[in-house]
Structure formats: structure tokens, C-alpha cells
């Protein structure tokens, strides 16, 4: 059965890039949303196997989204992969502290992305 993935990213081109990696790599059904609020709406509707999120978004940012997911019993076990441009930025550290499983810096290749996905899903 296809694994549902929630992809939260405000760039349309990046969303379609990531979706195409996941969809061509295997059995993933990618739900694309472009901001934190849409992510909050999508979460309860589907049993997601993975969340991939950007950090820097208006209103509900990726750190807040991660914290929310970790704080809810029914979402707490969903692996969260954070994608952002800057590994050294304080926001990256905060996302990991809020409970993100891994961080992947943009730009990344398809292999690097799939490796990171495998890593965060490894715990299952």
C-alpha cells in the first residue's frame, strides 16, 4: 500500500521536485501543502508515514509544526524530516530540539534526500 507523506513547503518548484523524487523512488503518496496551517488541516485526515517540512514559513513555522506533532499522542510517532537551506542557522537547531528526526540542507540530490528519508524512517 502506498505510504502517505505530508510535504510542507512554500515553494511550488521545490514541492514538485521532492514529490517526483518520492514518487519515482517507490510507493509514496505525497500530499503537498504550502504552509503550516494547511499542514494542520491535513494531519488528522490521513495516517501519515512521514512529514517533510520546510522551517521558514509565515505564521506557523516548521519548528512550531514539529512541536505540535510531537505533543499530540496520535501524531507523536510520525518521523519528521526538516529541509532548509542553512545547517548552521539557529532555526535548524531549534527544529531538531522541537523533535524533528533529521535535517537535510538544500540543495540536495535525489539520493541524498532518499537516504535521509530512509534514516528517519529506520526506526520502524
Amino acid at each position, binding site marked *: 500500500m502506498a505510504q502517505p507523506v505530508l510535504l510542507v513547503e512554500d515553494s511550488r518548484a521545490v514541492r514538485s521536485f521532492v514529490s517526483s523524487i518520492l514518487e519515482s523512488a517507490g510507493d509514496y503518496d505525497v*500530499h503537498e501543502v*504550502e504552509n503550516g*496551517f494547511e499542514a494542520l488541516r491535513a494531519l488528522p485526515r490521513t495516517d501519515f508515514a512521514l512529514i517533510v517540512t520546510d522551517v521558514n514559513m509565515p505564521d506557523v513555522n516548521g519548528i512550531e509544526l514539529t512541536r505540535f506533532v510531537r505533543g499530540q499522542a496520535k501524531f507523536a510517532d510520525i518521523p519528521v524530516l526538516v529541509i532548509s537551506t542553512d545547517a548552521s542557522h539557529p532555526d535548524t537547531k531549534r527544529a531538531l530540539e522541537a523533535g524533528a528526526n533529521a535535517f537535510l540542507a538544500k540543495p540536495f540530490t535525489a539520493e541524498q534526500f532518499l537516504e535521509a528519508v530512509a534514516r528517519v524512517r529506520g526506526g520502524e
Partner: protein
Amino acid sequence: MSEPPKPSAEFLSEAQEVIEAFSRNLLQLDTQQRTGEFDPDLLNAAFRAIHSLKGLAGLFGATQISSLAHALESTLDSLRLGRLPLSQPALDVLFEAVEVFQNMLAVFGLEETEGAVSADPLLHRIAALSPDAEEEDGAGDIVGLDPAILGVLTEYEEHRLRENVRLGRRLYRVHAAFDLLAIDVGIESLKGKLKEFGEVITYLPSADAGSDDRIELDILLGSEATLAAIGAGVAEDGVRVYALGDSPSDAPEARPGPPVVEPSNPTPVPSVSLTADDGIEMVDASTSMSLRSISQTVRVDLERLDVLMNLVGELALVQANLSGTLESVRALARSADVSRELQTHLRTMDRKLSLLQQSILDVRMVPLGQVFDKLARVVRKLGREAGKDIRLVITGADTELDKLIVEELSDPLMHMIRNCIDHGIETEAERTSLGKGPSGHIELRAFQKGNRVVIEVEDDGRGMDWRLIRDKAVERGVVAESESREMARQEVIDLIFVPGFSTKDVATEVSGRGVGMDVVKTNIARLSGLIDVDTAPGRGSKFSITLPVTLAIIQALVIETARQTFCIPLNSVLESIMVSEADIETVEGHEVVSLRGKTLPILHLSRIFELQTNYRYLDPARIYVVIVGLAQHRVGIVVDELLGQQDVVIKPLGRALRGVPGIAGATELGGGRTVLLLDVSVLVEEALGRSDGGPTDSGPAASSVNGSEAAHA
């Protein structure tokens, strides 16, 4: 799969959008910066745009764009974190970056072009803007917030929190619950209300939200208003507001702040429960949108639309053929029922075809805002270079035109704005001495008028003195002195559009804006547009450009001459008149007719296209002359027959005809006939080139024109 994805159209279009959004943010910031305070949200949006661009460009292998964005991102980060003041020189650098990014995008994806646009000078200027303030003070001691809360704020949000405290605002926690399906609508409404009170710092989703359908949020708000005032402001939304502990105005500085934000537990600080129901008033779930992305736009390549448009054109031909068949069926005596039925179907098909055609045209429409934003940047840049403070007012940026027209408009408008700033608007000192107020004003307006769009460029500068224009025109030999004395004021002003008049020294001397206006006129004419000018010395000038909404499909007048059929774009046809051979006079070797007191040069398509060596009028007593006009020029085209009006889809010419002057394209009429469409601007130029100038007065000869006029309204 390890290669970066291809430089897709998707990347280019999104990068373009991001840069345009960035530019709009800058323009707003620029205006606000000059008048005092600016909205920190705008600066943050500018940062986010460049941050997104960096990530986007990196993924798609646009390394040059990505590294420039990286450098700029640090500067914007310092700006939004208050480590670098937002100044006009800083804005200069940011505006320059918009141009550099656009140049980089323009060459991206072309072979061997990496490095064609140099970012070095800009990078040096970015580096020169080094932050002058130190890092902010350490952790939660100022605000007394729960460190767990500070931990989920981004660095920027934390900065805004501190900044609000520094400005002496109180901090509030606004607790709201939303129906998940309508959260975006609810949030927008609440955000709008809260923004009236101060700054929304962030939204924290509550970790202990109850059901699947609802979500609770805590909103951090910095405001000068009292708890009661904010409470009353959001009362109808059923939201609870809590003041956060140590707001600076009422707390002694040494007191350690209690951890006051605990989203799972309303704090014991004074709180108001505004309604029993803590849910915000919701839009009916049935009207809310789906879970899928809220973006409603799809980008389509114009070529694909052209394919659709051609198909519609071909369908129209099929329909015309069917109508022909209907006539044949009618001729069969016993088929009355069948032919009636067929006619009904044909009529329905006709209506649907028109709708289809209109829908495709609508898709091609884009707002003028894109071009206007670009002009706004130019106004700012040139104004600063010329040391003039210029206020630009834009209205009607959402007016839509065919994308191709919008693109072609950019150069002429740019040129007009440039003239406006260089020659039209006076220096500050000059304006003050004239009692005009130090800032110059330029207004850029667009509006729809019937099936045309009007764009106006108006300034309150020097304006042009028509007497000076007349003297200069005579001096330069554009008109004869005797002729010039008989010209009306407006005719004289229109001379600024004549090639040879508009040179730089003339423009400066008549303190007007005539530089290169002939080129502007030609560009506008190529878009089947008209340009008019209204000006008064000391008061300024107003240029009005009138354009068709689209060029893809036009109404055409179908004519026949020398046994050939041609189409003339109806929007350049002013009227058709009928003359007799005797009305045609020859003045200095050129054929003219007189029309209401003016001589009108006429031309024969048979000669221009060398159709017949010895063309003769079909009926020397009944010669049709179609009068076409472009910008302020008029020319008559001699035709044998007027066949009627028709909507035609313009198709590009085949190789053999491409480059034939006077032919703009081809189209198909019923029966599969290909017919050429005349390029009126070229024909007008041709005729005027021959007859040396526009319409001139020829006195009483006007009565010789046979009065039968056929209007084409």
C-alpha cells in the same frame, strides 16, 4: 538520478514570481521608509522571498543566483533582526539586486552563459553594508517567557518579541480554537482584527488540541492597547485574551517573571473569558475549501494557447462549411424539418464557439501590475539619480491585457517615464520657487474602456509650450513656416511624435518630453494602439495610450482589390468613403483626395504588392477608400469591394511571406481560403514617407468628396 533537475519552466516561473514579490515588498518599504516607520512584516517577507529563492536556485543548479541570494539573505537577516538600519543606500542595493536577479534569470539555461551577468559589483556593495549592532541580549530575562516557548520561535520571531518589549508594548496571548476545515478563513479574520492592535508575533498550535476537527492556537501579540480593549475588539470571535506577566510598563525590572505562556493551561494572570463558547465563529463547513492546495493558478505556455486558438479558428471554418451545407439542404424541397433542425444546432454551435474563443482569450490576459512594478523601480532609481523626490501613484494595476501586449508595452512606458523624470519634473529648488511643492508627482493609471484599455502617464512637471514646439519644428524643417502658422494647437503638440523633431536638445530647450517619442509612437502603433498627449506649460503633461485588449483575434474588414482579398484590422479603420476618379488629385506626384478640408494621401495595394501592372478601377464612378489611422496619421486605401466584417484568428506567416513589408499575418476565411492581413502601421509610414508629412489644409476642395460614407462601428 543524482543530477539536479533540469532548469525547468517551473523553476523559472517561480523564481520570477519570487523576485517580483520581493520587488513589491521593496517598493512598499521604500515608501514607508521615507515617511518614517515601516512595517516589520514587509522586511520579513522580503527576507523570506530571498531565502526561498536561495533554496530554489540551489536545487535547480542555478548556482550564481543561489550565491547572490545567499549574500543578500545575510543582509536581509541583519536588517530584519535590527542589526542593520534600513536606509536608502541599503534599499538601493536591494533594488539593484532585483535587476541583477532578473538579468541572471534571463540568461539562465542558455548554453555557456553562466557568468554572463556579473554580480561582483553588487556583491561588493552588499559586503559594504556590514551590520553595526551586536547580538541581542541573552535569553528570557527580558520577557520572562517560558523558555519552551522561546525555543519554538524562529530567531526572527524571538527578535520581534524582544523588539515589542523594547518599544514598551505589552505582550498578550490570544487563545483561539478553529474548525480545521475553515482554519485559513478564521485565522485571516482574526489576524486582521489583531493587527489593528499591534503586531502578531507568531502562532503556536496547542499540543493538546481535542478532536480531529478542531485545533487550538495561541497567538502571541505585542500591543500598546489594554487587555480590555483587545478583548472587546475580538469579542465576537469568541477568543480569549491573556496578558503576559512582566509587561514592562507595570513591572518592576528586578522581578523575575513567572513562566506565563503555558498553552495547555490558561495562566493565572488576569484573563477575560469573553464568551462561553471558545470557538471562533465559523464559516459553514460546506463552503470551505478542500484539503488540496489553495493555489488556483496553472501556468500555461502561450504556444499551447495558440494551438487551442487555431483549433477554434478551424472549428469556425468547419461551422462555416456546415452553414454552406445547410443552404444546399434547404434547396431540397422536402427537407424543411431537417434544415430547421440543422439550423438550430448550428446556432447553438456558433454560440458555444464564441464562448470557447472568449475563454481562451481570457486565459491569455495578465494584469498590468507586472510592468507597473518595474516602472516603480525605475522611478525610484532615476529620481534618486537626478536628485528629485518623486511620488508615483499607480491605479488600475489589476487591469488586464494580452500577455504579448503587456510585454511589448514595457519599453515604451519605460521611455515615457524616463522622459518624465529627466525633462518633465523640475528640480526641487525650481518647484519650490514656482510654489509647486518640492516633490514631483507621476501618476500611472490603467483602466478598461469598452473593449480597449487606456493607460495614462501624467506628471505635474514643466509641461510643453506649443509655441516653442512650433518654432523648433520650423527650425528643424519638420514643417514649413507657412504651414505651421495654420496649424491648430493640438496639431503642433502632436509634432513631438514626428521623427526628426524629437531630439534631445530640442527636448531640453522646450523643456518638454519629446525625446524619442517617435519611437514610442511606432511601438504603440505596432500594437494597434493610439497615443495622445495633452500638455500645458507649468502644469505638466498627460500621455494616453489606447490599446486593444488582445491581438490574437481581431475584427477585420475584408476587402478586395485587383482580384485579391485582404483583411484590414478594424481597429485601425476609421471610416470608408466613396469617391469618383475625378476626386483623386495628384499633388507633387502623389495621389490625394480631399476629406473635410484636409488632403488625405491614398495608396493602391495593387502597386505596393505589385499585383497588377495596369490596374484599373472597377468602376471609376464608385471607388471605395478605406481610411485607416494609426497614432495621429490618416491614410486612405483604395479598394474595389468591401466584403464585410469578420472575426479573424491571426496566424503567423509562412517563410515565403515573412518579412514582406505591409503584411502582418495571415488568416483563413470560410471555404479554406487563406487571406493576408495588412500591417497598417507599415502602410501608413509608407504613404507618409512618400507624401512627406501628415494631413495638411487644402481649403475649399473639401466639397469635391462624394459624401457617401460607410461607418464601421
